[in-house]
């Protein structure tokens, strides 16, 4: 099916899809790949085919518009496709794509990586209990399936996402038991100057909070979940007040519920960019490790471009414009002059980024957050390794996440380290008295996503296998 394309784009969220649409308008062949069946990314995730009709939201409207634009364009959109390896070739890039149970190779002259973000959840005792979902994960549940995580849900985390999730639970007919957020009202007030640039979004957030207050739902500012209780399902949670540096303090309170949505902000998904050969640099304001980049989505590697939250958490509005810039930069690389077009977009990108980065600032972890992860708390979910296990490895000399991974397998399980490596890095930083920026980031290895062996082995019969003649006795 797919062999050659001028430009390949990984990720069909607001950034990647707009990069693809922009490049396709310049008469280049563009292939847009995404692991979801339909475009939209996490923020504009499409509804499943099981939903015949439902009220619109700002996310469904934006997503439908984007999907229509892709349908009306010359972009080749390939959904339900996972990229598991990226190689540089003489003429560009080879992408190894897993699709319909088979692995195929796509060759592209230029590559745009728009892999977005994933969620960071600070491990707390019991966070592996069934019924605990990621906060961003819960939004996927609402957007795609319009289904609730349980009958009575506790919602906890930083930034605007905690209020969006609580509001969606109420819209879908569920009960919110409590909202628990490490942010204070003061943290939010400090974001106001940046937020007035988007009065529509500011008003929407204010409505979420006003609705919760009118509904009598407790909002615990500057608090965090310190324990999840329940054997095979969430039964209740404990939470405590946080100090200014987010260390838990004071007596534990309890709230009952059958489900918990828990998150602590977003991290740029950098693995694909790293496999393509880019180094990372640390930026607290952009959400942590981000690939080294130059203006307009360019990089120091010829034919490689980046855009969206995978380059730093700036939000969907900035991602759309960043995508257009990266698309134009890729077009420039392939021979057409797009400088004037890019000049016109740059100011809008910076304006949108200002709002998004104010929201990101609410999730910037403070040192005390790590104290939620007690000694017995599981840090590596795949291998069931506790904080004590990992601390022992660090004290025996493991000074990087890669060293902890080699010694303990933390990060070598099915998730590929996506849910433990940040905590491990922060534990190393705390032990060594440095910052996360001083701890070498994890090195991703292919496959970027799990690949069934059958997809690589291909079809054959045992009778076709060459069997060498046995050696004479």
């Amino acid at each position, binding site marked *: 099916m797919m062999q050659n394309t001028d430009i390949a784009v990984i990720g069909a969220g607001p950034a990647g899809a707009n990069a693809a649409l922009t490049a396709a308008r310049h008469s280049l062949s563009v292939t847009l790949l995404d692991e979801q069946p339909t475009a939209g990314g996490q923020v504009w995730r499409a509804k499943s085919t099981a939903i015949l009709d439902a009220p619109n939201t700002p996310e469904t409207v934006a997503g439908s518009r984007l999907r229509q634009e892709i349908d009306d364009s010359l972009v080749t959109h390939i959904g339900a496709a996972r990229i598991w390896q990226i190689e540089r070739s003489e003429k560009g890039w080879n992408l190894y794509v897993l699709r319909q149970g088979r692995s195929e190779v796509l060759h592209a002259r230029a590559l745009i990586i728009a892999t977005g973000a994933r969620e960071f959840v600070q491990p707390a005792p019991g966070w*592996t209990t069934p019924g605990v979902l990621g906060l961003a994960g819960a939004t996927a549940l609402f957007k795609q*399936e319009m289904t609730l995580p349980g009958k009575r849900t506790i919602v906890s985390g930083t930034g605007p996402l905690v209020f969006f999730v609580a509001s969606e639970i109420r819209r879908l007919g569920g009960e919110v038991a409590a909202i628990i957020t490490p942010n204070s009202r003061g943290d939010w007030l400090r974001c106001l100057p940046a937020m007035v640039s988007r009065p529509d979004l500011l008003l929407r957030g204010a409505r979420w909070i006003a609705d919760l207050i009118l509904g009598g739902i407790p909002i615990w500012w500057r608090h965090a979940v310190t324990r999840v209780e329940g054997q095979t399902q969430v039964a209740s949670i404990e939470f405590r007040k946080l100090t200014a540096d987010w260390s838990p303090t004071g007596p534990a309170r309890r709230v009952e519920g059958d489900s918990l949505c828990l998150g602590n902000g977003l991290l740029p998904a950098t693995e694909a960019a790293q496999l393509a050969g880019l180094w990372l640099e640390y930026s607290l304001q952009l959400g942590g490790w981000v690939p080294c980049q130059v203006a307009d989505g360019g990089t120091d590697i010829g034919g490689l471009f980046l855009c969206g939250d995978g380059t730093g958490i700036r939000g969907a509005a900035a991602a759309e414009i960043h995508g257009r810039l990266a698309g134009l930069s890729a077009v420039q690389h392939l021979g057409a002059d797009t400088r004037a077009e890019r000049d016109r977009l740059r100011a809008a990108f910076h304006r949108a980024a200002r709002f998004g980065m104010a929201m990101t600032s609410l999730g910037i972890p403070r040192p005390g957050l790590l104290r939620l992860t007690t000694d017995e708390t599981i840090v590596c979910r795949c291998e069931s390794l506790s904080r004590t296990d990992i601390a022992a490895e660090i004290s025996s000399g493991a000074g990087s996440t890669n060293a902890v991974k080699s010694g303990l397998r933390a990060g070598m399980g099915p998730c590929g380290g*996506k849910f433990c490596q940040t905590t491990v890095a922060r534990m190393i930083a705390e032990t060594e008295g440095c910052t996360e920026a001083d701890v070498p980031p994890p090195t991703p290895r292919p496959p970027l996503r799990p690949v069934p062996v059958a997809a690589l082995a291909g079809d054959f019969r045992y009778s076709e296998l060459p069997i060498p003649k046995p050696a004479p006795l």
Partner: protein
Amino acid sequence: MRLTPDQSSRIRRKPRVEFTFDDLPVSGHDGESLMVALMRSGHLHLRDAPEDGGARGAFCCMGLCQECVVRIDGTVVESCRYAVAQGLTVTSLRQKS
């Protein structure tokens, strides 16, 4: 008084189909994710962690964490990325059920 209206009655879904989870009958709407159909039926405990046997279930809901995997026709699949269909035989990865 509420500013966020309850819109649950305005969602129309495809008809239900039947499948089994560890030999128990479960129904879900045709085409929705297996994770969601199981969740709605109260089946949250999908597997046990191989190292310590702890109960696990769906967590990231987007195909990254691998916590929601189940077995269908001998193959381990992510239930958050697998669509419900009539007659599926789904087995948990629990050590004893």
